[in-house]
């Protein structure tokens, strides 16, 4: 039985209306489901594939390609630490080290309480304010290690 909610289906239908081929909205459909469920489980993937008239394998080949589609469980908040060149020059490594130490997790891991997932990320396009990171939809720039604790506290 397809477990997509009516809300999810409506949003997916809207995305389908923007493209001439149903399948072309596959990525959009995965994004929508991820917004509602935080990550894409095997069951969600199957449901979306059925709804898009795709095979599970076809849709998974797409889902596993894009780094912002999560095929594993993630925390309530995603920390994306920019590790690209300008941020690296301006101190990414000490930002990453402090985040890891404070949260007790490494890159790609989720805190035991399920609050944060820490991920490295490519250039966030704010290089004149490096180092930078994003938490969910919020961008933090000109970071100093001393500020990290207060920033994280906003999400706990």
């Amino acid at each position: 039985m397809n477990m997509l909610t009516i809300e999810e289906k409506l949003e997916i239908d809207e995305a389908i209306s923007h493209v001439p081929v149903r399948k072309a909205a596959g990525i959009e459909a995965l994004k929508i489901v991820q917004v509602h469920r935080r990550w894409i489980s095997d069951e969600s993937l199957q449901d979306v594939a059925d709804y898009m008239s795709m095979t599970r394998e076809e849709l998974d080949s797409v889902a596993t390609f894009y780094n912002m589609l999560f095929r594993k469980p993630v925390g309530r908040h995603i920390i994306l630490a920019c590790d690209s060149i300008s941020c690296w020059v301006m101190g990414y490594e000490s930002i990453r080290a402090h985040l890891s130490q404070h949260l007790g997790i490494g890159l790609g891991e989720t805190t035991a309480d399920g609050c944060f997932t820490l991920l490295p990320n490519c250039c966030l396009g704010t290089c004149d304010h490096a180092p930078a990171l994003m938490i969910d939809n919020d961008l933090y720039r000109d970071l100093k290690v001393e500020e990290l604790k207060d920033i994280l506290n906003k999400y706990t």
Partner: protein
Amino acid sequence: MERPLTQHIREDQRPLSLREYEKVGGYQALRKTLKDLSPQGVQQVVKESNLRGRGGAGFGTGLKWSFVPLDAPKPKYLVANADEMEPGTFKDRILLECTPHQLIEGMIISAYAIQANISYVFLRWAYKVAATVITRAIAEAYEAGYLGKNILGSGFDLEMHLHTGVGRYMCGEETALLNSLEGKRATPRAKPPFPQISGLFGRPTIVNNVETLCNIPHIVEKGASWFQSLSRTSDPGTKIYGVSGKVKKPGAWELPMGVTLRELIEDYAGGMQDGLTFKGVLPGGASTDFLVTEHLDVKMDYPSVAAAGSRLGTGTMVVLDDKTCPVGFVKNLEHFFAQESCGYCTPCREGLPWIEKILGSIDDGDGREEDLELLHKHVKFLGPGNTFCALAPGAMEPLESALRYFKDDFERHIHEQRCPYHNHNGHH
């Protein structure tokens, strides 16, 4: 000094609403286009202006458009490439967040020029503010009759949709972007056929960069010779340049094409931070060759930077200072490229991680004499013509130039079996 692209950007960077944009002359170029110009007429003025694509490759915009068969049946597509993800690049973000209607007007005129009836803005996921701003602006444009059916009574129709991505650098490559818009993995396509003939969903398609499209209304309104007059060299227009790294005042500025590297770094970016010396710069993002001190007086336009052995690329530069390890710097770049290789062709998928490992061991003090030879070989194997798309050749540009300009640094790492910068930057 005229700054057509950024002149209306406010101090607080709040975006201009449709009404505000109209008040400063917005959508006049579109009105003129639909009233007085044929699609060929728009193409003609853009060709005469010699505008070159601002996404990195610098291909002539008018020439690119001219390969679209005007008489081909619809649908035809125009896509704004707003997937800004070249490391060190932050110029399109400003245009997207602050002047959304300038982009939309540029897109409508460009779509008219190639007779496209459907358009997409392919926006990077990370640009959350831009997503909100563009969504609102598209809705305003529909409401005002600038988008939709029979635009301003001209009989020209155009749909516009915002598509936000889900990551991967490959999406910036235009054929990979089209695959992604079709809901597929973002792998590049074989060319020919070129997108102008068979692009999105197999239909004629043009993909243009945001900064390129933002230039179009101004060129149409003021003409090719005005556009030429903006520049200090034969390469016309303004350019949004940016500087990041350990300079006093990192930032982005719209300036006449052809300002020198020295002016950008010393005057606009305020020079190096105290105690640091300029050592090198990637002039246009991660996939461009280093320029060094001897190049400080190079004019930053497409032909001059090419003559100096690099590429203007995106025009947003990353500075390397004398206390930052060049090996670590290049390792960071190659890590990025290795990670972002789409895996479609073997040299790129296998070669880039190998390069990253070699650089890693040199940086860690485990380098061997023969490693430098091995890196030089990779530069050849992953160079132009040996891979499916430009990602790996782009990745070789900073590596090859670093091996040349910073040879001593690589050799010291190997001879001393340690990173000589170790105590200076805390990167280890």
